[in-house]
């Protein structure tokens, strides 16, 4: 009851705040982001404050844990009290757009022309765009130079699945461990499986296609032959990284965000793109956040909110922000600047260029339902309870029912 009263009071206060005209142009604008690691003294917080000053308003920032942010935004939207600017993990954009929480870029006049289309795709739904990516990350293969040298494997020789599997066999014969990844029963497991699934030519609308079965058989086979540890079934991307950081593994599938940790491992490492089934780089899923503007009752607030959002995604600020976050920028110009500043990023820029949005192709809110069945199928096959074909057939029929 007390809670209800407080909520009612907050909603009433919000309504009053919206209807008072003098607070339209000036006053406090709220920004929510999923970067709790940055405190008030950080560059990120400084950037938000500067963007506020440039737009002539004061900015109140609140940082949430990523997993927490979605439910917090849903609750705030339910109480008609959403933030003015919201920075959001990209696969959640279509869910919140479906909920009617986000305003389209057409309404808010946000410019998206410079953004790479494959990155923008995660924010598109039914012909409308719901935000601007602030940066992207994706997956690639880290390798341990010493382990590969010991096994007599040239990293450059890995071009497709066959050459990767052959390399793993050599590594195992040399006494080291092959590859570690994360196949846990959450979104992380699907995220890590997708480069192989897409790299075989799989489509999320047909999980049990020949391509899908080939990708899952590749992983299952690696486990059966001891090229990958059984612990991958329970590995998060963090625990998988810890296995790689032990120095006993030749390869690890992991993300851009581990670059800073890679320097701390104490051994020489390199990065190659995840190979496609028959060669070329496999499309990996895009990670990273979008800058969005939630729907407001008072549409006059959009002008200032759009100024804030544009400031955050302006080329100079993108470079600074993406360097802090260890992300790849979403525009070609800034990507080029990043590579010229740090040549190590070139492979990541290529990976991001080849990457795909999980909710793209108008999958939108169907993606979470498909993804859940996909990670279950991966777990069933890797733990040996079902064959890859049987696991994916079950997953496909369950996904078809869920998305009908």
């Amino acid at each position, binding site marked *: 009851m007390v809670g209800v009263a407080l909520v009612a009071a907050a909603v009433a206060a919000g309504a009053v705040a919206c209807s008072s005209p003098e607070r339209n142009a000036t006053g406090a604008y709220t920004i929510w982001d999923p970067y709790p690691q940055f405190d008030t003294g950080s560059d990120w917080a400084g950037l938000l404050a500067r963007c506020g000053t440039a737009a002539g308003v004061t900015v109140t920032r609140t940082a949430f844990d990523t997993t927490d942010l979605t439910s917090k935004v*849903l609750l705030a939207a*339910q109480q008609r009290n959403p933030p003015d600017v919201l920075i959001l993990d990209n696969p959640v954009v279509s869910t919140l757009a479906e909920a009617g929480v986000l305003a389209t870029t057409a309404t808010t006049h946000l410019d998206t022309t410079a953004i790479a289309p494959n990155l923008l795709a995660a924010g598109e739904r039914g012909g409308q765009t719901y935000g601007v990516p602030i940066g992207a990350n994706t997956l690639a293969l880290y390798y341990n130079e010493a382990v590969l040298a010991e096994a007599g494997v040239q990293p450059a020789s890995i071009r497709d699945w066959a050459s990767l599997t052959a390399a793993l066999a050599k590594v195992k014969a040399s006494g080291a461990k092959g590859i570690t990844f994360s196949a846990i029963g959450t979104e992380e497991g699907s995220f890590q499986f997708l480069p192989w699934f897409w790299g075989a030519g799989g489509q999320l609308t047909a999980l049990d296609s020949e391509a899908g079965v080939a990708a899952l058989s590749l992983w299952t086979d690696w486990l059966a032959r001891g090229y990958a540890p*059984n612990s991958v079934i*329970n590995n998060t991307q963090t625990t998988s990284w810890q296995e790689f950081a032990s120095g006993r593994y030749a390869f690890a599938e992991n993300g851009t965000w581990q670059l800073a940790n890679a320097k701390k491992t104490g051994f020489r490492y390199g990065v190659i793109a995840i190979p496609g089934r028959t060669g070329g780089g496999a499309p990996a899923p895009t990670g990273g956040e979008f800058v969005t503007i939630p729907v407001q009752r008072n549409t006059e607030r959009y002008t200032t909110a759009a100024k804030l959002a544009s400031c955050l995604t302006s080329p100079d600020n993108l470079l600074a922000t993406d360097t802090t976050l260890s992300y790849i920028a979403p525009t070609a110009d800034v990507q080029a600047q990043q590579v010229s500043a740090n040549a190590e990023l070139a492979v990541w820029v290529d990976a991001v260029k080849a990457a795909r949005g999980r909710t793209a192709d108008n999958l939108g809110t169907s993606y*979470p339902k498909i993804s859940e069945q996909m990670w279950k199928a991966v777990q069933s096959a*890797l*733990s*040996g*309870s079902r064959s890859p074909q049987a696991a994916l057939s079950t997953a496909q029929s369950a996904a078809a029912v869920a998305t009908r």
Partner: protein
Amino acid sequence: MLAVTDPATSQSPRGVAEPAASRGRKRRTTGQLTAWAFLLPLVVYLLACYAYPLYRNLDLSLRDYTVRSFVQGDAPFVGLSNYRTIIADPTFLPALLHTGVFTLGSLVFQFSIGLAMAVFFHQHFRLSATLRALLLTPWLLPLIVSSSTWSWMLDSEAGVVNAALSAVGIGPVHWLTAPGWSLASVTIANIWIGVPFNLVLLYSGLQGIPSQIYEAAAIDGAGGWVRFRHLTFPLLRQVSAITLLLGLVYTLKVFDIIWIMTRGGPANASTTFATWSYQLGFGSMLPRFGPGAAVGNLLIVAALAVGLGYIRSRSRWGDV
């Protein structure tokens, strides 16, 4: 306070009795108001922290919530449709079975180990108090610490348990990643956490049994097992029943241990109603509040049924 009457008014003549009575009535109503005022914080607390969340959970489970209708607040009433959805779900039967195995397995072992230890410590040997205090550690550790530690110990690759097994020549067991083992592993971790709770309650129960009874039994020539079987066990019945009831209510809703150790996996092999409810409501990017709340309500009903069964059986035994 209400019973106290002013001697002056009670001795006053009949004519003045009228205002005195009304004054008494007024005092009684003031007293009642005071009583209600004292009751009010509790009532508000019960309504805000128990009744309202329960009502909301019931309401959630009876409506068709999508992210859109959650925000707009216009979720249509769908009756028992969410309950039909979860019962028809292929996860329902495995989750029911796992919840049963996890709960019963945990209770049987927690109780028997706890009882054995309680009897053991009841003999008051040297250092028994210190040892008993040490055994309480699992109960004091934050669940996230103990489950992460278990998860690390049982890891297929780097776990200390498999290292110990391989030292004695036994091949690695995939404790957390094999469908046949993951439920057993989380149950073992939960037993470890629950033993101290059983130990403490049963130990205090043992202290309530008068030592003369044992002395009399010893004079009659009863051995250790006979004394345990025919004295300790029956006399502990009340304490045992409440220990098991509390253990059951606690175990039914165990979530953290399973979620941290296996996420209910591999592929639902260790999913219980508690983790399934969380998985539905918060585990994916697209929350399904309705079915999630429905699973949670089934757990509440199960705990309530056992609680009522306990109250009935207690009234049948009578108060010993």
